[in-house]
Structures are given as structure tokens and as C-alpha cells.
């Protein structure tokens, strides 16, 4: 199969354009078209992953304008599994959204004529496909400018989808989100250009020429600010609960990916080429990550809104990946990346289930729910599985991820007594907080006495197009949890090559 990586990136925009141009012809089939085009690119990614699993590295170069400037794509053990899981989530959410967005249009715009309805419906899908394009681009490119381009593309569909289909305060919050994204992107651009001014190349593979350069400290510093803004780490976390509370839940999982993709950028652009220079940031970042974890957990416990609940937990969970990566051992980085995948799967399930709850009950307040387990068994199972994924329970994939990650973190911790060890111990302790808040929510929402207002026949499990994609994600997580080698071996091809100082 030739041009496999290029196809992965350009299939979504082509499908998007097709949906946009033929919206009155295809009508409500737009969702299926988007879903199947993403299934196709997921299949391509699986093929690519199999090739990489057997030791190959896929490199593609395309001339851009003239032959001097090329657009390079790299599929290796780090980029492909991340791309595969993200694309899988996009696919699942495309199917999930078929019903959900129908419901949102009805809720926001009331009864509208078919033409207006189709305009809204297809607008969602043609914009939605911007996400897989952006994510795949960030994962696969070899060039900093191309990476910046794809990072900058992502907030645009986010802004429009949120402002068109979100909840009450959507327009204002979309603006908040866009502003934070632009500020983050400005720091990315500054960092990339600083790197360029030192090495004269935008190629990520040439970044290791920066090692030992006195400027490198500041380059990493500026890029870290950008990454922390994207990841919503503590001083920059303000936007996350707002944004997560107001957007439609069908892109909620992608918003978690949008924030988390910064972890991938961190490994790809900073940790992988420049581990020795990154070492200086290791302990401060670990402390910051710990603060974020604990703060995020307590923030989550205080929430009563099911959507804000999931949002605040994202702040806390993102910090686990950050902790693992900044501990800077092979095991902790692999674990951190693996946890990132486990977390986005868990968060997608949790958010989408929150969407189902809002969709069926019509309220976002957890206290008004209760006893829903008897009415909605599948939804309950999904929420519990999401909770298990976040808390790192076996057999979910985040269990081996946390295991591997904390092995590495403790190794660093022992070397950097006493701060490192304390961070490691408290970090492991913070997992208990996750268990506490996730299972507390299970208890409040699904068990206990049934709220009399909800004791009608309308409260039932959602249509299959909403639950099956989520069950598939859970299945993938369980497979990776039972057989973590699948992902860890792939990561190991790349990450084992980092010369840990």
C-alpha cells in the first residue's frame, strides 16, 4: 500500500469537502459517510501499525511547492499507536454523534425545516472531520512548521462546533477556548522559531543538534509553557472546566485528546531529541504534575455537574502522563504515553456516557439523578468501565500503564531523594483520590433510590449507534490491558533509543 500515511491525513478533509458540497443530496447520511471514511483510515493505521510492529519505519516525503521544501511524514513506534487510538476514538465518536447531534439540533434550534436542519447537521460533520486531520497531522509530521500548522488547525473546528452545538454559554466559552489555543500556539511558534534560529532547520530529527546549546534551556522553557497551556496544568488550567462544561459531548473525548496531544508533542519534540537538556526541568515538572493531580482530584470531588465532573478529572489525569514523562526514565515515559492512550479512551467513554445521561434525563446535576442502574444497565456498565479506566483498575489498559509508569517514577524518585521520592509516593497516593471521585459518582448517579421524576419509560438505554462505539472503545482498552505488549513493544522501538542521562 503506497502513500499510506498521506492517505490517513487527507481522507478526512476529502470526506469533509464531499459532505459540504453534497449536503442536500446525502442529507442525514453524512454521519455514516464521515464514520466510514474514518473507519477506512483506521484500517490503514492498523496496517501501518502491523508493519511497524515487525520492525519497519514508514517514511514518506512529498514535495511541497518546489522540491526544496518537503512535507515529510513519519510512522514509527511512537507516532502510529497514538495516531491509531486517536483515530479510533474519532471513528467511534463520529458514529456516536449521529444520534447525539440530531438531539442537539432539536434542543438548540427547535423544530426547523429540513433544509436548515441539514445545514446544521452536515456542518457538524464537515467540521468534525477537521479533528482527525489535525490529530493525524500532529502525530505523523516530521517538520515543526507542519506540526504547528496542524496544532493551529485544531482549535478552528473546535471553536465553530462548540459555538454552534454547545450548551448554554457556548459562544462565550468557545471564545475563551480559542483565545487560550491561540496563546498556546503563539508560544509553540516562538519555541519552534527559536529552535530554527539555532539549527537552521525545521526538521524534528535535527532537533538533537540543539543539545548543549545555551539557548536550549529557553527553547524548552517556551515550548513547555505552550505544552502546559494545552495540557491545562495547574497555573494554566482555568479554561478546561469551562470548555468541557459547555461543548457538545460528542466532541468531549476529542477535547481530552486535544489537550493530551501536547504530551505526545513533549515526547516527540523535546524529550526524545534532547533528554539531557530536559533533565533540568524534570523535578520542577514532576512537582507541578503532582500539584495538578491532587488539585484536579479535589476539584473533581466538588463537582455536581456531570460534564464539569469529567472536565475537572481531565486536569488531574493529564498530569499523570506529565509526571511519567518528566520522570525521564524509559519505563516512565513508555508508561506515561500508554497512560495517555488509556486516559483518552476512558475519558471518551465517560464524557460520552455523560452525554447520554444528559440526553435521556435532561439534567446535568448528578444530585437529581440516582438509581439509574436499574433503568439504564448498559450506560451504567459504560460509566463503571470509564471509572475503572481512569482509576487504573485491571483489566483496563491504564492498569499496566500506571504500573510501568510508577516503576519508572520510583526509579527516578530513589535517585533524586528526597523530593523525587516524595513526589513518587504522593503521586501513587493520588490514585486513591481518583478512585474516590470516580466511584463516588457511580454511587450518586446509578445507585441509591431512583429519583421519582425519572421514573418514567423515557429513561432507558440509548440507541445502539450511541452505545456500540463506546463498547468497542472499552473492548480495545481491555485488549490492551490484557496484552499491553501490543502498545509497549511499539513504544519501545522508539523510546528505548532515548539516551537517558
Amino acid at each position, binding site marked *: 500500500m503506497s502513500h499510506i500515511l498521506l492517505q490517513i491525513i487527507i481522507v478526512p478533509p476529502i470526506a469533509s469537502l464531499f459532505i459540504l458540497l453534497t449536503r442536500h443530496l446525502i442529507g442525514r447520511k453524512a454521519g455514516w459517510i464521515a464514520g466510514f471514511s474514518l473507519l477506512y483510515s483506521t484500517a490503514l493505521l492498523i496496517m501501518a501499525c502491523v508493519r511497524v510492529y515487525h520492525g519497519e519505519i514508514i517514511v514518506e516525503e512529498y514535495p511541497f*511547492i*518546489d522540491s*526544496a*521544501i518537503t512535507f515529510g511524514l513519519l510512522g514509527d513506534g511512537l507516532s502510529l499507536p497514538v495516531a491509531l487510538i486517536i483515530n479510533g476514538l474519532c471513528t467511534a465518536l463520529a458514529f456516536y454523534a449521529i444520534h447525539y447531534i440530531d438531539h442537539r439540533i432539536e*434542543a*438548540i*434550534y*427547535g*423544530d*426547523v*425545516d429540513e433544509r*436548515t436542519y441539514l445545514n446544521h447537521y452536515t456542518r457538524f460533520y464537515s467540521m468534525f472531520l477537521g479533528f482527525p486531520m489535525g490529530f493525524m497531522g500532529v502525530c505523523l509530521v516530521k517538520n515543526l*512548521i507542519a506540526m*504547528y*500548522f496542524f496544532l*493551529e*488547525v485544531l482549535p*478552528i473546528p473546535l*471553536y*465553530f462546533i462548540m*459555538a*454552534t452545538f*454547545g*450548551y*448554554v*454559554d*457556548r*459562544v462565550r466559552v*468557545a*471564545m475563551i477556548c*480559542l*483565545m487560550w489555543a*491561540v*496563546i498556546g500556539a*503563539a*508560544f509553540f*511558534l*516562538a519555541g519552534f*522559531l*527559536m529552535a*530554527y*534560529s539555532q539549527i537552521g532547520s525545521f526538521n524534528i530529527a535535527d532537533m538533537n543538534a540543539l543539545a548543549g546549546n545555551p539557548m536550549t534551556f529557553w527553547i524548552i522553557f517556551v515550548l513547555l509553557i505552550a505544552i502546559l497551556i494545552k495540557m491545562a496544568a495547574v497555573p494554566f488550567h482555568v479554561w478546561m472546566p469551562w470548555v468541557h462544561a459547555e461543548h457538545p459531548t460528542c466532541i468531549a473525548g476529542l477535547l481530552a485528546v486535544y489537550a493530551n496531544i501536547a504530551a505526545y508533542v513533549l515526547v516527540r519534540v523535546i524529550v526524545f531529541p534532547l533528554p539531557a537538556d530536559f533533565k533540568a526541568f524534570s523535578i520542577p515538572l514532576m512537582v507541578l504534575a503532582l500539584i495538578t493531580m491532587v488539585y484536579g482530584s479535589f476539584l473533581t470531588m466538588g463537582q455536581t455537574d456531570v460534564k464539569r465532573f469529567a472536565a475537572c478529572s481531565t486536569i488531574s489525569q493529564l498530569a499523570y502522563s506529565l509526571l511519567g514523562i518528566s520522570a525521564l526514565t524509559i519505563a516512565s515515559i513508555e508508561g506515561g504515553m500508554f497512560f495517555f492512550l488509556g486516559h483518552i479512551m476512558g475519558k471518551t467513554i465517560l464524557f460520552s456516557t455523560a452525554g447520554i445521561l444528559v440526553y435521556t434525563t*435532561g439534567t446535568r446535576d448528578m444530585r437529581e439523578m440516582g438509581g439509574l442502574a436499574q433503568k439504564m444497565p448498559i450506560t451504567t456498565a459504560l460509566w463503571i468501565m470509564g471509572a475503572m479506566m481512569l482509576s487504573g483498575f485491571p483489566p483496563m489498559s491504564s492498569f499496566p500503564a500506571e504500573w510501568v509508569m510508577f516503576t519508572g517514577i520510583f526509579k527516578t524518585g530513589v535517585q533524586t531523594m528526597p523530593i523525587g521520592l516524595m513526589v513518587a509516593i504522593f503521586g501513587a497516593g493520588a490514585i486513591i483520590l481518583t478512585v474516590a471521585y470516580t466511584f463516588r459518582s457511580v454511587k450518586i448517579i446509578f445507585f441509591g433510590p431512583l429519583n421519582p421524576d425519572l421514573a418514567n419509560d423515557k429513561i432507558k438505554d440509548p440507541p445502539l449507534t450511541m452505545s456500540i462505539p463506546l463498547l468497542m472503545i472499552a473492548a480495545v482498552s481491555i485488549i490492551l490491558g490484557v496484552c499491553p505488549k501490543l502498545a509497549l513493544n511499539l513504544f519501545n522501538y522508539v523510546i528505548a533509543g532515548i539516551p537517558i542521562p
Partner: protein
Amino acid sequence: MATHFAALIIVIPLIAALFVPVIGWWKKGLCYPWVVAVLLVPLISSIGVLNRVIESGPFSYYLGGWAPPWGIEYAIDYLNAFVLVIISVISLIVSIYSKKSVEKEIPEKVVPFYTLFLLLVTGLLGIVVTGDLFNVFVFLEIASLSCYALIAIGRDGAPLATFRYIIMGTIGASFYLLGVGYLYIITGSLNMLDVARLLPELYHSRVVLTAGIFMIVGIGLKMALYPLHAWAPNAYADAPSTVSGLIAPLMTKVAAYMMIRVMFTVFKPVFFIEVIPVTSILTWMAAVAIIIGSIYAIAQTDLKKMLSYSVVAQIGYIALGIGLANKSGLTGAVLHILNEAFTKGCVFLVAGAIVYKMGACNINEFKDLYRKMPFTMSAFLIGAFSMVGIPPTCGFFSKIYLIMGAISADKWIFVAVLLFSSVLNVVYFFRVIQIATFETPMPDYGRDKAYEAVYMDEVPLSMLIPIQIMAAGILLSGIFSSKIISTVIQFVIPVGF
């Protein structure tokens, strides 16, 4: 024919301008096709000139066969061939757009409008094409005087705005003329290349120093460089929409061209960098312009006024690139001239389209505008993306070169200013998009009456197509920016950078 392209660029529109009143006296409706047809000539000629420069390098043309320094020489190199193409493309697109807008806004002044329009274009082209310092002044006056008149036929506040512009513009032109006079006193020549050859030995003469400063301040006034910008926002906002669509993308950019010409051709770069450190002052003025212009833009409620302040901010970018005086910075500045021409052209034409449909352009009244005018507003969106610097629009690439220029000059403060200005641009452009695109949110199921249907109400094709061409220009010049730089702009950079 092809050998006389350089002269045809200005001679044809100048003569044609004189015929417009005659044609208008005979039949008013013929003015429009006449102007569009005439403007094809400078377009073809300037493309021919650019082609010749790319193929065989810079050349000169002696007007009337008189050899310099006695006669007027048209010295064509990469820079002015490039700017000539920009001017002729933009003016042709705006002239196509003008028909409906002029009929609606100033129906009784169609004939003078088109006469002045051609004179303005002639002036702008003349400033760029000529290689003679005094000739630049002549064309500058042609352009300015026709510009004053064009602005004065605009909406209510226009005469006052014009008066301010006349005062400040005349001071600027006089300063420039004084500078040229001093140079003539000391060198005895007005030909740019001749002066450039004679000057280096005299760099420390007080006359030359004074001349340099006079010329830069004069051009700075014409360029609307902060703090000399006071005339610009009102003049652009109160002018008829077509006129703003022409002068906003071109007028200040031509002044920016003059600045590059004076700083790096007439004087050698070393003069303004080392003998008198104008460049470093220029960068600081530019940085202030970028921030203050953007902040003023945020404060506006009138779309045209907001865009006018945005012009002030964007001129700061160009001045910053010139002031950085290194390869990346100047590349960014020249690329930004192209970007600004298309982007400001696009957004001002959109503003004109909105005025055409709504009679005014108060941002707070833009509700549902996107649904009424989807194609126009999509073009606005592309323009906004370019202003913010979102790839693959041209604005991204010019900004990236400017930032690299700031980095290689080791002036990190300007990197911060450029990046911060993107954020400010997001604030004021997305505010417009937000009002025009999204309706006021209300709680779910909170809608007590049906979703109101809004019907598409687009502007006529003669306005829509130019807008779309401008938007396409933004994207194409972005996608092909590396090609443009490698074929044209890299030769603009003076030796020694």
C-alpha cells in the same frame, strides 16, 4: 510594444483619466467599462515588466529617450516590478467591484469618481515605477490630491477627515520634498541611482543627515506609522467603500515601498543603520504601532473604523520588518506588503458589501449576517485568518519571516510583540465573526417560537466575485509564498544583509 511597457503602465491610465469626463458627459454608464478596460493595460504591462525582470534582471527605461541624469529614468528592479503587479491587480479587482457600490453610495458623482480613481491609480503606479526622486514627489501629489477628493465624497464626516488628511499629507509631502531638495543641493542630481552613487562620501554632511531625516519623517506620515497615523482611521472609515477598498490596501503600502527605496537604494543601508540609527527607532515605533493599533481596533464598533486601525497596526509589521534591516525581516516586510494588499482589500471590500446591503457597518448589528451572506462572510473569515496568521494564509508566512528577522536581530521583545499582536487580532476579528455567525445562546428547549428562517441575501456578482478573488489571492499567495520569495523577493534584499 513590449519595450515600452514601463511607460505604458502610467501613460495609458493618465490619458484615459482625462477621457472619463468626456465619456461620462456622453453616456454615464460607459465610465465603468472604460475604467476596467483601461486598468487591464497596467496589469498586462506590469506582468510583462515583472517577467522581463525575472528573465533578464533589472533594467531601465528612459522616458522620451532622454538619458539620465537629465531625463527621467524608470529603473525597474525586482522590488518595484513586484509592487507594480500588486497595485495593478488590486486596482483592477477594486474597479470591477466598484460598479454597484458606487451606484448605491454616490450615484450623482460617478463620473468624477472614475476620473479620480484612474488618477489615483496612475499616481500610485508612478511612485513605484519611477527612478527619479522628484518624479516620485510629482506622482505622490497626483495620488494624494486625487485621494483627498475621493475621500471627501464619502459619508458624513468625510470632509473633516479629508481636511485632516490634507494637512498631514501635505506636511508629509513637503518634508519629503525638502529632503529631495537638500539632496539636490549637495549632489546636483535627482536620479536615484545617481544620487546613491554620489552620496556615500557625503554621509557625514549635515545636509545629507537632515535630508535623510526629512524624507523618512515625510514618508512615515504618508505611511500612517504611529504616532503619525492620526489622519488614517477617519479617512479610511469615512471614504466611500470602494475608495477605502482601494486606498487601504495600496496607499500606505506604496509609502512603505518608498521607505524601502529611500532607506536601501537611495541611501546605502549603512547610513540608516550606523550613521544615524533610524532603523532601531523605526522598530520601536513599529512595535508601538502594532500594539496600539490593535488595541484601538478592539475599541471600535464600526467595522470600517476597526479595519482602519488594523491598517495602522499592520503598517507596523511592515515598518518593523524594514527596521530590523536583515534578510528575514525585509523578506517578511515585502511579503507582508503583498499579504496586506490582498487581506485589507478583501476585508474592506467585504465591509463595502455589508454597507451595500445594510447601509452601515455597525458590528453590533451584524446578527445572522453569516446566514444572509455566507459567501461574503466566508471571504471575511479567510481575511481574518490571514490577519491572525493562521496557516496556510499569507499572513502566517509573512509573520513567520518577521519573527525570524526579530530572532536573528536578537531582539526578543519584538518576537513577543508579534505573537501578542496575533492574540489581539483574534480578539477583534473573532468578535465580528462571533456576532455575525452565532445567535445569542439560550437554554436548551428555551426557544418558545420556531427558529427564525433567514434567507440568503447576497451582494451582486460584480461585487461578490472580486471579493472571492481577493480571498483566493490570500490563500494562493500563502501557499506559493516560498515560490514568490525564491523568484522575486530574495533579490530585493540589498547586498550586505
